[in-house]
C-alpha cells in the first residue's frame, strides 16, 4: 500500500482541521454554525474511510505504524469527535466567538490522538501527545470570562506541562539506556535482558506521564477541577478520547517495547488499578455537580480499563478495546445530556435535574441508560465490557482484584442511581418549561443509545472486531 494511502486518515484529518481554521476567517459572523456542520460531516466521512481501511497494515518511515489496533482507536477518537461536534453547535454558538477555531482545535487534537495511537517511535509519540494536550489547554479555557474555565485551563496547562516534562524525561532515559527511540529496537534490547536501573526510572516516569492522561489515581488530581471548569463538550471529549489515546500509547510502549520487563511494572499497575477504582468510586458519592460526578466516574473507569493491562493478555487488550469504545458512547451520552441541560437551565448542579423525566423524557432516558451502562447493568453494553475486563483478570489469577472491582461497581450504582432518583422522582421546579432538544443532538443521542443496547444484547460483531485487533497486536 502506498504511503499516502496508509496515512490518508491522518492527512484528511489534518486537512479538515486546517481548512476549518482558514474558513473560520472567511465565513462572516453569524453564519459560523455551518463550520460545525462541516466539521461533523467531514469527520463522518473520515470515520467511514477509517472503517474501510480497518484491516490496513504497514509501517511508514520506520516509526509510524498503521495496524488494525491503531485504526480501532482512530475510529474511537473519530466517533468521540463527531459526538462532541454535534453537541457543541448550540453551546459554542452561544459563546459568540471563535467558532471556526473551536472545531479546528477539536479536530487537531483528534489528529494528535491518532498520532499517539500509531506512533512506533518515541519522538513521534511525544509530538502526538503535545498536539493533543495543547489543543485541550486552549479548549478548556474556551468559556472566556468564566473564572472556572480560566482556572481549568491554567491547571491543565501547568499540570500538563509537569506531566509532559516527566514523560519526556522518561523518554530520554529510555533512549539513553537503549540507544534507540524506535519501539521495535527498544524491545530488542529489553528482550536480551538488559534492564538497567536507569531504564526502570525511565519506565516509571513514562508510566506517570501516561497515567496523568488516563486520569488514574494518584495522577488524577487535575481531572475534577478541569472537567468542572471546561466547556461541557470539551469535558466530554477530554474524558473519553484523551483517556483512550493514553491507553493506546501506553499499550504500544509497555506491551511491545517493554513487554519483556512486565514483571517489573506489573505491581505498579495493580496499585494504580486499586487506587483508581476505590478513590474514583468513593469520592464520586458526595459530589453535587454532574460534571464532577462524571469526572470521578471517569477516574474509576480508568481503573476498570487498567484491569485489562493488569491481565497482560490478548483477552485483556481486547477487553480494553471493547470497553473504551462503549465508554465513548455511554459517557458522551451522559455529557450530551448535561450540555443540553446547561444550555436550557445554565446549571450543572444535580439537584437542578429534578423532574427532568417530565421536562424531557428523551434526555432523562439517555442519562439513565448511559449511567446504567457505566455501572455495568445488563442488558446494556457496559455489562458485557466489564464482564470481559473482570474475566481477563480472573483468567490471570487475580480473583481478589475482580472481586474488589465488582464491589466498587456496586458502590458506583449508588451514586449513579442518585442522579436517576432526582431525575425521575424529583418534582420539576415550578414554571420551568419542557426542554427542547435540537434535531442533531436528538440523532446523536439516539445513536449512542442504540449502540449501548445493540452491543449489550448482541455484542459479537464488536467483540470480534476488538478481539481480532487485539490478537494482531498482542502475540
Amino acid at each position, binding site marked *: 500500500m502506498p504511503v499516502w494511502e496508509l496515512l490518508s486518515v491522518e492527512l484528511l484529518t489534518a486537512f479538515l482541521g486546517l481548512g476549518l481554521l482558514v474558513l473560520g476567517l472567511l465565513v462572516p459572523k453569524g453564519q459560523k454554525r455551518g463550520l460545525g456542520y462541516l466539521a461533523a460531516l467531514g469527520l463522518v466521512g473520515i470515520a467511514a474511510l477509517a472503517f474501510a481501511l480497518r484491516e490496513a497494515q504497514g509501517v511508514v518511515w520506520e516509526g509510524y505504524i498503521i495496524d488494525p489496533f491503531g485504526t480501532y482507536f482512530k475510529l474511537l477518537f473519530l466517533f468521540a469527535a463527531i459526538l462532541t461536534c454535534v453537541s457543541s453547535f448550540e453551546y459554542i454558538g452561544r459563546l459568540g466567538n471563535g467558532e471556526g477555531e473551536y472545531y479546528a482545535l477539536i479536530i487537531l487534537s483528534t489528529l494528535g490522538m491518532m498520532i499517539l495511537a500509531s506512533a512506533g517511535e518515541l519522538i513521534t509519540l511525544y509530538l502526538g501527545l503535545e498536539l493533543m494536550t495543547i489543543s485541550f489547554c486552549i479548549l478548556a479555557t474556551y468559556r472566556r470570562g468564566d473564572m472556572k474555565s480560566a482556572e481549568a485551563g*491554567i*491547571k491543565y496547562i*501547568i*499540570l500538563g506541562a*509537569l*506531566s509532559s516534562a*516527566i514523560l519526556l524525561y522518561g523518554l530520554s532515559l529510555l533512549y539513553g539506556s537503549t540507544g534507540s527511540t524506535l519501539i521495535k529496537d527498544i524491545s530488542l534490547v529489553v528482550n536480551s535482558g538488559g*534492564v*538497567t*536501573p536507569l531504564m*526502570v*526510572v525511565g*519506565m*516509571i*516516569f513514562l*508510566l*506517570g506521564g501516561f497515567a*496523568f492522561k488516563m486520569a488514574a489515581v*494518584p*495522577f488524577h*488530581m*487535575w481531572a*475534577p*477541577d478541569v472537567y468542572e471548569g471546561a466547556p461541557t463538550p470539551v469535558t466530554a471529549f477530554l474524558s473519553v478520547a484523551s483517556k483512550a489515546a493514553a491507553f493506546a500509547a501506553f499499550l504500544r510502549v509497555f506491551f511491545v517495547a517493554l513487554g519483556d520487563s512486565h*514483571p*517489573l*511494572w506489573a*505491581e*505498579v499497575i495493580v*496499585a494504580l488499578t486499586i487506587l483508581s477504582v476505590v*478513590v474514583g468510586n*468513593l*469520592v*464520586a*458519592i*458526595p459530589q453535587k455537580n454532574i460534571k464532577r460526578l462524571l469526572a470521578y466516574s471517569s477516574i474509576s473507569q480508568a481503573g476498570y480499563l487498567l484491569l485489562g493491562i493488569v491481565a497482560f*493478555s*490478548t*483477552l485483556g487488550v*481486547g477487553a480494553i478495546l471493547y470497553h473504551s469504545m462503549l465508554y465513548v458512547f455511554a459517557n458522551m451520552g451522559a455529557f450530551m445530556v448535561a450540555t443540553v441541560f446547561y444550555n436550557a437551565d445554565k446549571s450543572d448542579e444535580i439537584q437542578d435535574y429534578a423532574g427532568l423525566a417530565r421536562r424531557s423524557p428523551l434526555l432523562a432516558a439517555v442519562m439513565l441508560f448511559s449511567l446504567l451502562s457505566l455501572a455495568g447493568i445488563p442488558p446494556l453494553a457496559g455489562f*458485557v465490557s466489564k*464482564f*470481559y475486563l473482570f*474475566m*481477563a483478570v*480472573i*483468567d*490471570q489469577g487475580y480473583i481478589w482484584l475482580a472481586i474488589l472491582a465488582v464491589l466498587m461497581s456496586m*458502590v458506583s450504582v449508588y451514586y449513579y442511581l442518585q442522579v436517576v432518583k432526582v431525575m425521575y422522582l424529583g418534582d420539576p421546579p415550578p414554571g420551568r418549561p419542557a426542554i427542547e432538544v435540537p434535531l442533531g443532538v436528538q440523532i446523536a443521542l439516539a445513536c449512542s443509545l442504540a449502540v449501548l443496547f445493540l452491543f449489550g444484547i*448482541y*455484542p*459479537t460483531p464488536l*467483540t*470480534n472486531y476488538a*478481539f481480532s485487533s*487485539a*490478537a494482531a497486536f498482542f502475540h
Partner: protein
Amino acid sequence: MIRYAWLVPLFPALAFPVIAFITRRLRTLSALVGIGAIAASFVLSLGILWETLTSGVTMEKPVEYALSWLALPGAKDWVLKIEAGVLVDPLSAVMLLVVTLVALLVEIYSVGYMHGDPGFSVFFGYLSLFSASMLGLVLANNFFMMFFFWELVGLCSYLLIGFYFHKPEAARASLKAFVVNRVADFGFMLGFFYLFLMFKTFNFRELAEALPHAPHMGLLAVAATLIFAGPIGKSAQFPLHVWLPDAMEGPTPVSALIHAATMVAAGVYLLARAFVLFASIPEVSLLVAYVGGFTALFAATIALTQRDIKRILAYSTMSQLGYMIMAMGVGSMTAGMFHLTTHAIFKALLFLGAGSVIHALHEQDIFRMGGLAKDMKVTTATFVLGALALAGIPPLAGFWSKDEILLAAYSNGYTGLYILGTVVAFLTSFYMFRLIFVAFFGRRRAGLHGHESPKCMTVPLIILATLTVVAGFIGAPFVPHGFSSWVYFGEPHHLEPNYFVMVTSTLVAILGIYLAWLIYGKEVISAEALAQRWRSIHTVLYNKYYIDEAYLWFFRRVVLGLAEAFHWHDRHVVDGIFDGVGDTVRWSGYRLRYLHSGSLPVYALVFFAAVVVFVLWVATPVIGGIR
C-alpha cells in the same frame, strides 16, 4: 426452508412490539397482526417439516447453525461459549408444527372468545410473545438459550394466568405458578451449569459427544436429576404440580395453548432433547419413569371427583403429561413425543370446547350444566370426539399414541408401570365420560341454556376434531415410514403391533365409558351413594390429597417461621453490617474529598510524590541486584 428456521420465532417476536406500541388502540388490527405472524410461522414450519422429512435430515444428521453470542477469546484456562443457534431435526420440526398449528387455531378462536374484553389487544400481544418464546425454546441448540426461552415462556404464562388480574384468585394463581416454577427452574439451571463445568459447553450435540467421557458418573447423575427438576415444574409433575390446576384462572384459550398443548409439554421436550443424558444413567431414567407414572395415576384419581370443567381437564393434562414423562423414563422417546403431538391436538380441542361452553353459559361447574348437546351441536360433537381420543378409543389419535407408551413399558420390562398405565387409561375414560354425561346430556340441572358459539370459534374446533381423527395414523404401527422413523433415539425402532396390549386398553376404556354411563347417564348406580359409601376416599380425592393444604401448612409454619427468624437476623445483624459498611463507604467518600483542595501546588506535589514512591518501589530491587 430449514435455512430460514430462525424466522419462525421471529415473526411472532416482531408482532409483540408492533401490537404493544403501535396497534394497541386498534383491536381488529392487533388481532390481525398476531394471527398473521403466527400464520406465517405455521406455513414456514410446514415447509421445514416437509424439507426435513424429504431431504435426509435425521436425528443423527440434523441441521445446526449458530451465531456466537458471548465467548472469551484468548483466555488462558477459562472457556465460555454461549451461542444463539438453531437446531433442526425431525424432533424440533415436528414440535414447531405442533406449536404453530395450535397457536394459530387458538389465536383465531380467541377473536371470538375474547370479543369485547378491554384487554383484547394486549392479549394478542402476550400470545405472540408466548409463541415466539416457545418456538425459540424448541429451536434452541444449547441449554443456555433453551433456559432463556424457558424463563420467557414462564413469564408469559405468569402474565396470562393473571390476565384477569382484578380477580384475586387469578392474581394468586399467577403468583403461585411463578413461585413453583422458580423452584423448579433453579434446579434446572444448577443442573446445566453443572454440566457446563464438567464439559465446557452448553451445546446439545457437543454434550452428547462428550458424555461417554464423563469424569464421574455420580456427578453426572446429580446434574441429570437437577435438570429433571425443570420438567417436574414446567410439566406439572408430582410434587410440583400444584400450580397447574390454579392456572385455569387464566382465559380458556390460554389454558388450551399454554397449559395443555405447548408450554407444559416443554418439560417433555427437554427430556427428549437431552435424552442421551437421561438414557445413559439408568437410575435417573427409573426416577423419571416412576415420577411420570405416579403423576399419571395421582392426577387421574383427583380428576374423578372434581366439579369444575377446566379443572377436570387440567388434572387430565397432568395425568397425560405423566404418561409422556413415563414414556421417556422407560426409554421410548418416540412414544413420548408421539403422545405429546396427539395430546396437543385433542387436549387443545377439549379446552377450546370447554371454552365454548363457558362462553355460552358463564359457568364452569359441570353439575350446573346438562343437556348442552341440544343447544351446542358442533361443540358437543367435537368435544365427544376429543374425549374419545383421550380415552383411547380406536382409531382416534389418542389410541395409537397411548398404546405406544403402554407397549413401550410392557416390552421394556416395566410390567408394574404397564399395569399402572392401564389403570390410568380406565380412570381417564371414566372421568371424561362422567364430564360428558353430566354436562352435555341428561337433564338441565340448573336450567341453564347454551347457544352455539360464533364461526371463528367453531371452525378451529372442527379443524382440531378432524386432526384428532387423522393424526394418529402418522404413528400407527402398520404405517411404514411413520412417526417412529422420524423421531427416535439410537436406532429407529418400529414396534410390532401387540394385540394383547391394544385389546386390553381398548376394553378398559370401553369399560370406563360404560361405568360412567351407568352412574351418570342412566343413573342406575347412585353417585351419591357411592360417595357416601367411600366418603373418606372421596373427601381425600376431592381435596386433591390435601397437597395444597400441606404446602400451605409448610409455608405458614416452617417457611414463615424461618422467615421471621431471618427477618430478625436481617434487621439486626445484616442491616447493621451493611448500614455500617454503607456509612463507612459514604463517610470515606466525604473524607477523601478533602484531598481535592483545589490548590495547584498540592496537586503537583501529589503527582511528584507518587512518581518518587513508584520509582523507589520498583527501582530499589533492581539497584540492589535482586531482579
